[in-house]
Protein backbone atom coordinates (compact mmCIF):
# COMPACT_ATOMS: atom_id res chain seq x y z
CA UNK A 1 0.00 0.00 0.00
CA UNK A 2 1.39 3.41 -0.95
CA UNK A 3 1.43 6.25 1.47
CA UNK A 4 1.18 9.55 -0.34
CA UNK A 5 0.72 13.01 1.08
CA UNK A 6 -2.66 13.05 -0.69
CA UNK A 7 -3.84 10.26 1.61
CA UNK A 8 -5.26 12.70 4.15
CA UNK A 9 -7.75 13.69 1.48
CA UNK A 10 -9.43 10.33 2.01
CA UNK A 11 -9.32 10.17 5.79
CA UNK A 12 -13.11 10.43 5.89
CA UNK A 13 -13.31 7.06 4.10
CA UNK A 14 -12.74 4.41 6.77
CA UNK A 15 -9.78 2.14 5.98
CA UNK A 16 -11.62 -0.75 7.64
CA UNK A 17 -15.38 -0.71 8.23
CA UNK A 18 -15.97 -3.79 10.39
CA UNK A 19 -19.78 -3.67 10.21
CA UNK A 20 -19.81 -3.38 6.44
CA UNK A 21 -17.21 -6.13 6.05
CA UNK A 22 -19.23 -8.48 8.23
CA UNK A 23 -22.43 -7.74 6.33
CA UNK A 24 -20.76 -8.15 2.94
CA UNK A 25 -19.05 -11.38 4.00
CA UNK A 26 -22.39 -12.85 5.06
CA UNK A 27 -23.89 -11.81 1.73
CA UNK A 28 -20.99 -13.39 -0.17
CA UNK A 29 -21.33 -16.67 1.71
CA UNK A 30 -25.07 -16.84 0.97
CA UNK A 31 -24.61 -15.96 -2.71
CA UNK A 32 -21.74 -18.46 -3.08
CA UNK A 33 -23.88 -21.24 -1.59
CA UNK A 34 -26.81 -20.28 -3.83
CA UNK A 35 -24.61 -20.34 -6.95
CA UNK A 36 -22.83 -23.59 -6.09
CA UNK A 37 -19.51 -21.79 -5.57
CA UNK A 38 -19.02 -22.63 -1.92
CA UNK A 39 -16.77 -25.64 -2.51
CA UNK A 40 -15.52 -25.76 1.07
CA UNK A 41 -17.28 -24.18 4.07
CA UNK A 42 -15.53 -24.11 7.42
CA UNK A 43 -15.73 -22.95 11.00
CA UNK A 44 -14.01 -23.70 14.29
CA UNK A 45 -15.57 -25.18 17.40
CA UNK A 46 -14.40 -25.11 21.03
CA UNK A 47 -14.52 -28.61 22.52
CA UNK A 48 -13.05 -30.51 25.52
CA UNK A 49 -10.24 -31.62 23.17
CA UNK A 50 -9.42 -28.08 22.09
CA UNK A 51 -10.43 -25.98 19.11
CA UNK A 52 -11.50 -28.16 16.19
CA UNK A 53 -11.57 -26.97 12.61
CA UNK A 54 -14.59 -28.37 10.74
CA UNK A 55 -14.77 -28.23 6.95
CA UNK A 56 -17.46 -29.53 4.61
CA UNK A 57 -17.94 -29.80 0.86
CA UNK A 58 -21.37 -29.99 -0.75
CA UNK A 59 -21.02 -33.79 -0.35
CA UNK A 60 -20.35 -33.80 3.37
CA UNK A 61 -17.88 -33.32 6.18
CA UNK A 62 -14.44 -33.49 4.60
CA UNK A 63 -12.05 -32.49 7.38
CA UNK A 64 -11.87 -32.29 11.14
CA UNK A 65 -8.56 -30.90 12.39
CA UNK A 66 -7.01 -30.47 15.80
CA UNK A 67 -5.29 -27.24 16.78
CA UNK A 68 -1.89 -28.95 16.73
CA UNK A 69 -2.36 -29.72 13.03
CA UNK A 70 -2.27 -25.92 12.38
CA UNK A 71 -5.62 -24.81 10.99
CA UNK A 72 -4.13 -22.38 8.48
CA UNK A 73 -1.95 -25.15 7.07
CA UNK A 74 -4.97 -27.47 6.92
CA UNK A 75 -6.99 -24.88 4.97
CA UNK A 76 -4.09 -24.37 2.56
CA UNK A 77 -3.96 -28.13 2.02
CA UNK A 78 -7.72 -28.18 1.40
CA UNK A 79 -7.32 -25.40 -1.16
CA UNK A 80 -4.90 -27.59 -3.11
CA UNK A 81 -6.62 -30.95 -2.59
CA UNK A 82 -10.27 -29.90 -2.94
CA UNK A 83 -10.70 -26.31 -4.16
CA UNK A 84 -9.48 -22.81 -3.24
CA UNK A 85 -13.13 -21.66 -3.15
CA UNK A 86 -13.08 -21.80 0.63
CA UNK A 87 -15.05 -19.49 2.92
CA UNK A 88 -15.68 -19.24 6.64
CA UNK A 89 -19.33 -20.27 6.43
CA UNK A 90 -20.69 -21.83 9.60
CA UNK A 91 -24.22 -22.76 8.45
CA UNK A 92 -23.18 -25.87 6.52
CA UNK A 93 -21.52 -27.19 9.69
CA UNK A 94 -24.58 -26.72 11.92
CA UNK A 95 -25.62 -30.42 11.96
CA UNK A 96 -22.16 -31.71 12.90
CA UNK A 97 -21.71 -28.94 15.47
CA UNK A 98 -24.96 -29.98 17.12
CA UNK A 99 -23.96 -33.65 17.09
CA UNK A 100 -20.48 -32.93 18.46
CA UNK A 101 -22.03 -30.97 21.33
CA UNK A 102 -24.29 -33.95 22.07
CA UNK A 103 -21.33 -36.32 21.82
CA UNK A 104 -19.20 -34.32 24.26
CA UNK A 105 -22.18 -34.16 26.63
CA UNK A 106 -22.26 -37.97 26.57
CA UNK A 107 -25.65 -38.11 24.88
CA UNK A 108 -24.61 -39.20 21.40
CA UNK A 109 -22.88 -42.45 20.43
CA UNK A 110 -23.07 -42.39 16.64
CA UNK A 111 -22.54 -39.50 14.21
CA UNK A 112 -25.15 -39.16 11.51
CA UNK A 113 -23.78 -36.62 9.05
CA UNK A 114 -22.77 -37.19 5.42
CA UNK A 115 -19.01 -37.77 5.13
CA UNK A 116 -16.79 -36.88 2.19
CA UNK A 117 -13.85 -39.31 2.20
CA UNK A 118 -12.10 -37.81 -0.82
CA UNK A 119 -8.97 -36.95 1.18
CA UNK A 120 -8.12 -40.60 1.84
CA UNK A 121 -7.54 -43.23 -0.77
CA UNK A 122 -7.03 -46.96 -1.15
CA UNK A 123 -6.17 -49.01 1.92
CA UNK A 124 -6.32 -46.01 4.24
CA UNK A 125 -9.85 -45.40 3.15
CA UNK A 126 -10.74 -49.07 3.69
CA UNK A 127 -9.39 -48.75 7.23
CA UNK A 128 -11.34 -45.56 7.91
CA UNK A 129 -14.59 -46.99 6.61
CA UNK A 130 -14.22 -49.88 9.09
CA UNK A 131 -13.64 -47.62 12.11
CA UNK A 132 -17.31 -46.63 12.68
CA UNK A 133 -17.96 -50.37 13.19
CA UNK A 134 -15.99 -50.19 16.44
CA UNK A 135 -18.78 -49.42 18.88
CA UNK A 136 -18.81 -46.42 21.18
CA UNK A 137 -16.97 -47.27 24.39
CA UNK A 138 -15.06 -50.19 22.80
CA UNK A 139 -11.55 -50.35 21.39
CA UNK A 140 -9.72 -52.55 18.88
CA UNK A 141 -6.02 -53.15 18.40
CA UNK A 142 -4.18 -52.08 15.26
CA UNK A 143 -3.87 -55.79 14.37
CA UNK A 144 -7.62 -56.38 14.73
CA UNK A 145 -8.35 -53.40 12.47
CA UNK A 146 -5.84 -54.68 9.90
CA UNK A 147 -7.62 -58.02 9.84
CA UNK A 148 -11.03 -56.37 9.55
CA UNK A 149 -9.80 -54.24 6.65
CA UNK A 150 -8.72 -57.44 4.85
CA UNK A 151 -4.92 -57.22 5.31
CA UNK A 152 -3.94 -58.87 8.60
CA UNK A 153 -0.25 -58.08 8.08
CA UNK A 154 -0.76 -54.39 7.41
CA UNK A 155 -0.61 -53.40 11.07
CA UNK A 156 1.79 -50.52 10.43
CA UNK A 157 -0.35 -49.27 7.55
CA UNK A 158 -3.35 -49.18 9.90
CA UNK A 159 -1.29 -46.95 12.19
CA UNK A 160 -0.58 -44.64 9.26
CA UNK A 161 -4.25 -44.62 8.22
CA UNK A 162 -5.26 -43.60 11.74
CA UNK A 163 -2.50 -40.98 11.99
CA UNK A 164 -3.67 -39.42 8.73
CA UNK A 165 -7.42 -39.73 9.40
CA UNK A 166 -8.94 -36.55 7.87
CA UNK A 167 -12.02 -36.89 10.09
CA UNK A 168 -10.86 -37.57 13.67
CA UNK A 169 -13.48 -37.77 16.45
CA UNK A 170 -16.27 -38.33 13.91
CA UNK A 171 -14.47 -41.30 12.34
CA UNK A 172 -13.28 -42.88 15.58
CA UNK A 173 -9.60 -43.66 15.07
CA UNK A 174 -9.23 -42.92 18.81
CA UNK A 175 -10.81 -46.35 19.40
CA UNK A 176 -7.77 -48.06 17.90
CA UNK A 177 -5.17 -48.83 20.59
CA UNK A 178 -2.04 -50.94 21.05
CA UNK A 179 -2.39 -54.71 21.63
CA UNK A 180 -0.99 -54.26 25.17
CA UNK A 181 -3.87 -51.90 25.93
CA UNK A 182 -1.80 -48.69 25.95
CA UNK A 183 -3.25 -45.82 23.96
CA UNK A 184 -0.73 -45.55 21.15
CA UNK A 185 -0.32 -42.40 19.11
CA UNK A 186 -3.11 -40.08 18.09
CA UNK A 187 -3.48 -37.27 15.58
CA UNK A 188 -4.88 -35.06 18.35
CA UNK A 189 -2.21 -36.06 20.87
CA UNK A 190 -2.35 -38.62 23.66
CA UNK A 191 -4.29 -36.32 26.02
CA UNK A 192 -7.09 -35.92 23.48
CA UNK A 193 -7.23 -39.69 22.94
CA UNK A 194 -7.47 -40.22 26.71
CA UNK A 195 -10.22 -37.60 27.00
CA UNK A 196 -12.31 -39.26 24.27
CA UNK A 197 -11.85 -42.80 25.56
CA UNK A 198 -12.59 -41.69 29.13
CA UNK A 199 -15.73 -39.90 27.96
CA UNK A 200 -16.88 -43.01 26.10
CA UNK A 201 -16.09 -45.31 29.06
CA UNK A 202 -18.30 -43.28 31.41
Amino acid sequence: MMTMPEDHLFDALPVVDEDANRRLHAWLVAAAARDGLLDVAYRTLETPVGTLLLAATEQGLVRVAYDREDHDAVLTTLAAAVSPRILAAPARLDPVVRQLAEYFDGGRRVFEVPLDFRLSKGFRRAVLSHLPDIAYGRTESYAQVAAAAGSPKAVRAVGTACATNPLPVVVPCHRVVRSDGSFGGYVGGEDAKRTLLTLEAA
Partner: protein
Amino acid sequence: MRPFEQIVTEYGPVVLRVCRAVLGPVDAEDAWSETFLSALKAYPELPDGANVEAWLVRIAHRKAIDVIRASARRAVPVEDLPETPSTSRPPDAWDGDLWDALARLPDKQRAAVAYHYLAGLPYKEIADIIGGQTDAARRAAADGVKTLRATYRHPAEVEGATP
Protein backbone atom coordinates in the same frame (compact mmCIF):
# COMPACT_ATOMS: atom_id res chain seq x y z
CA MET B 1 -3.22 -21.26 -3.87
CA ARG B 2 -4.51 -19.45 -0.78
CA PRO B 3 -8.04 -20.17 0.49
CA PHE B 4 -10.39 -17.51 -0.87
CA GLU B 5 -11.35 -16.53 2.68
CA GLN B 6 -7.84 -15.07 3.07
CA ILE B 7 -8.35 -13.02 -0.09
CA VAL B 8 -11.59 -11.58 1.31
CA THR B 9 -9.94 -10.80 4.65
CA GLU B 10 -6.87 -9.20 3.13
CA TYR B 11 -8.39 -7.24 0.23
CA GLY B 12 -12.06 -6.86 1.16
CA PRO B 13 -11.56 -3.58 3.07
CA VAL B 14 -9.46 -1.86 0.40
CA VAL B 15 -11.80 -2.94 -2.40
CA LEU B 16 -14.74 -1.55 -0.41
CA ARG B 17 -12.87 1.73 0.03
CA VAL B 18 -12.22 1.87 -3.71
CA CYS B 19 -15.85 1.06 -4.53
CA ARG B 20 -17.04 3.76 -2.14
CA ALA B 21 -14.75 6.36 -3.68
CA VAL B 22 -15.80 5.41 -7.22
CA LEU B 23 -19.54 4.86 -6.69
CA GLY B 24 -20.48 6.60 -3.47
CA PRO B 25 -22.19 5.22 -0.40
CA VAL B 26 -25.35 3.94 -2.12
CA ASP B 27 -23.96 1.66 -4.83
CA ALA B 28 -20.56 0.69 -3.37
CA GLU B 29 -21.73 -2.40 -1.53
CA ASP B 30 -23.51 -3.78 -4.59
CA ALA B 31 -20.33 -3.40 -6.62
CA TRP B 32 -18.24 -4.99 -3.85
CA SER B 33 -20.61 -7.94 -3.66
CA GLU B 34 -20.67 -8.53 -7.40
CA THR B 35 -16.88 -8.16 -7.51
CA PHE B 36 -16.18 -10.78 -4.88
CA LEU B 37 -18.78 -13.21 -6.22
CA SER B 38 -17.19 -12.96 -9.69
CA ALA B 39 -13.74 -13.26 -8.18
CA LEU B 40 -14.73 -16.37 -6.23
CA LYS B 41 -15.98 -17.97 -9.43
CA ALA B 42 -12.82 -17.19 -11.41
CA TYR B 43 -10.36 -17.67 -8.55
CA PRO B 44 -9.24 -21.26 -9.31
CA GLU B 45 -8.04 -20.10 -12.75
CA LEU B 46 -6.04 -17.13 -11.43
CA PRO B 47 -2.39 -17.73 -12.40
CA ASP B 48 0.16 -18.27 -9.63
CA GLY B 49 1.94 -15.06 -8.71
CA ALA B 50 -0.77 -12.81 -10.18
CA ASN B 51 -1.24 -9.41 -8.51
CA VAL B 52 -4.44 -10.20 -6.61
CA GLU B 53 -5.23 -6.60 -5.72
CA ALA B 54 -4.93 -5.42 -9.33
CA TRP B 55 -7.07 -8.38 -10.43
CA LEU B 56 -9.78 -7.44 -7.91
CA VAL B 57 -9.70 -3.75 -8.86
CA ARG B 58 -10.03 -4.75 -12.52
CA ILE B 59 -13.16 -6.76 -11.72
CA ALA B 60 -14.47 -3.97 -9.48
CA HIS B 61 -13.96 -1.49 -12.33
CA ARG B 62 -16.16 -3.59 -14.65
CA LYS B 63 -18.79 -3.96 -11.93
CA ALA B 64 -18.73 -0.22 -11.25
CA ILE B 65 -19.40 0.45 -14.93
CA ASP B 66 -22.33 -2.00 -14.77
CA VAL B 67 -23.69 -0.24 -11.70
CA ILE B 68 -23.33 3.21 -13.26
CA ARG B 69 -25.09 2.02 -16.43
CA ALA B 70 -27.87 0.41 -14.43
CA SER B 71 -28.52 3.54 -12.38
CA ALA B 72 -28.39 5.65 -15.54
CA ARG B 73 -31.17 3.46 -16.96
CA ARG B 74 -33.13 3.84 -13.74
CA ALA B 75 -32.64 7.58 -13.48
CA VAL B 76 -35.34 9.95 -14.68
CA PRO B 77 -33.85 12.29 -17.32
CA VAL B 78 -33.26 15.74 -15.86
CA GLU B 79 -32.91 18.78 -18.07
CA ASP B 80 -30.70 21.21 -16.23
CA LEU B 81 -29.10 19.91 -13.05
CA PRO B 82 -27.87 16.44 -12.23
CA GLU B 83 -29.34 14.97 -9.09
CA THR B 84 -27.10 15.82 -6.16
CA PRO B 85 -26.02 12.75 -4.25
CA SER B 86 -26.82 14.54 -1.00
CA THR B 87 -30.56 14.24 -1.68
CA SER B 88 -30.45 10.44 -1.83
CA ARG B 89 -27.78 9.75 0.77
CA PRO B 90 -28.77 7.15 3.37
CA PRO B 91 -28.40 8.09 7.02
CA ASP B 92 -25.30 5.92 7.49
CA ALA B 93 -23.37 7.57 4.64
CA TRP B 94 -19.62 7.59 5.31
CA ASP B 95 -19.01 11.20 4.38
CA GLY B 96 -21.22 13.49 2.40
CA ASP B 97 -18.69 16.20 1.65
CA LEU B 98 -15.98 13.90 0.35
CA TRP B 99 -18.40 11.98 -1.86
CA ASP B 100 -19.95 15.22 -3.09
CA ALA B 101 -16.51 16.31 -4.24
CA LEU B 102 -15.62 12.92 -5.74
CA ALA B 103 -18.96 12.69 -7.55
CA ARG B 104 -18.21 15.91 -9.42
CA LEU B 105 -15.06 14.46 -10.97
CA PRO B 106 -15.23 12.91 -14.45
CA ASP B 107 -15.56 9.10 -14.15
CA LYS B 108 -12.05 8.45 -15.44
CA GLN B 109 -10.42 10.86 -13.00
CA ARG B 110 -12.37 9.46 -10.08
CA ALA B 111 -11.34 5.91 -11.03
CA ALA B 112 -7.67 6.88 -11.51
CA VAL B 113 -7.62 8.68 -8.16
CA ALA B 114 -9.17 5.72 -6.31
CA TYR B 115 -7.01 3.06 -7.95
CA HIS B 116 -3.81 4.99 -7.35
CA TYR B 117 -4.31 6.71 -4.01
CA LEU B 118 -6.51 4.09 -2.31
CA ALA B 119 -5.48 0.79 -3.94
CA GLY B 120 -1.88 1.88 -4.53
CA LEU B 121 -1.78 0.57 -8.11
CA PRO B 122 0.91 1.89 -10.46
CA TYR B 123 -0.28 4.05 -13.37
CA LYS B 124 0.65 1.40 -15.95
CA GLU B 125 -1.73 -1.03 -14.26
CA ILE B 126 -4.41 1.68 -13.98
CA ALA B 127 -4.09 2.50 -17.71
CA ASP B 128 -4.61 -1.22 -18.42
CA ILE B 129 -7.79 -1.17 -16.39
CA ILE B 130 -9.40 2.10 -17.46
CA GLY B 131 -7.96 2.18 -20.99
CA GLY B 132 -5.57 4.64 -22.61
CA GLN B 133 -1.90 5.39 -22.05
CA THR B 134 0.03 5.35 -18.78
CA ASP B 135 0.63 9.10 -19.02
CA ALA B 136 -3.07 9.74 -19.46
CA ALA B 137 -3.81 7.71 -16.33
CA ARG B 138 -1.19 9.67 -14.39
CA ARG B 139 -2.68 12.95 -15.63
CA ALA B 140 -6.23 11.85 -14.79
CA ALA B 141 -5.20 11.06 -11.21
CA ALA B 142 -3.24 14.33 -10.85
CA ASP B 143 -6.08 16.42 -12.26
CA GLY B 144 -8.57 14.60 -10.07
CA VAL B 145 -6.61 15.18 -6.89
CA LYS B 146 -6.05 18.83 -7.80
CA THR B 147 -9.78 19.35 -8.25
CA LEU B 148 -10.52 17.51 -5.02
CA ARG B 149 -8.11 19.77 -3.14
CA ALA B 150 -9.96 22.77 -4.48
CA THR B 151 -13.49 21.49 -3.92
CA TYR B 152 -13.27 19.36 -0.81
CA ARG B 153 -12.23 20.72 2.55
CA HIS B 154 -10.94 18.09 4.88
CA PRO B 155 -13.01 18.10 8.11
CA ALA B 156 -9.89 18.76 10.21
CA GLU B 157 -9.04 21.81 8.09
CA VAL B 158 -12.55 23.12 8.33
CA GLU B 159 -12.38 22.93 12.10
CA GLY B 160 -8.97 24.59 11.99
CA ALA B 161 -7.44 21.66 13.90
CA THR B 162 -4.46 21.45 11.55
CA PRO B 163 -2.24 24.30 10.43
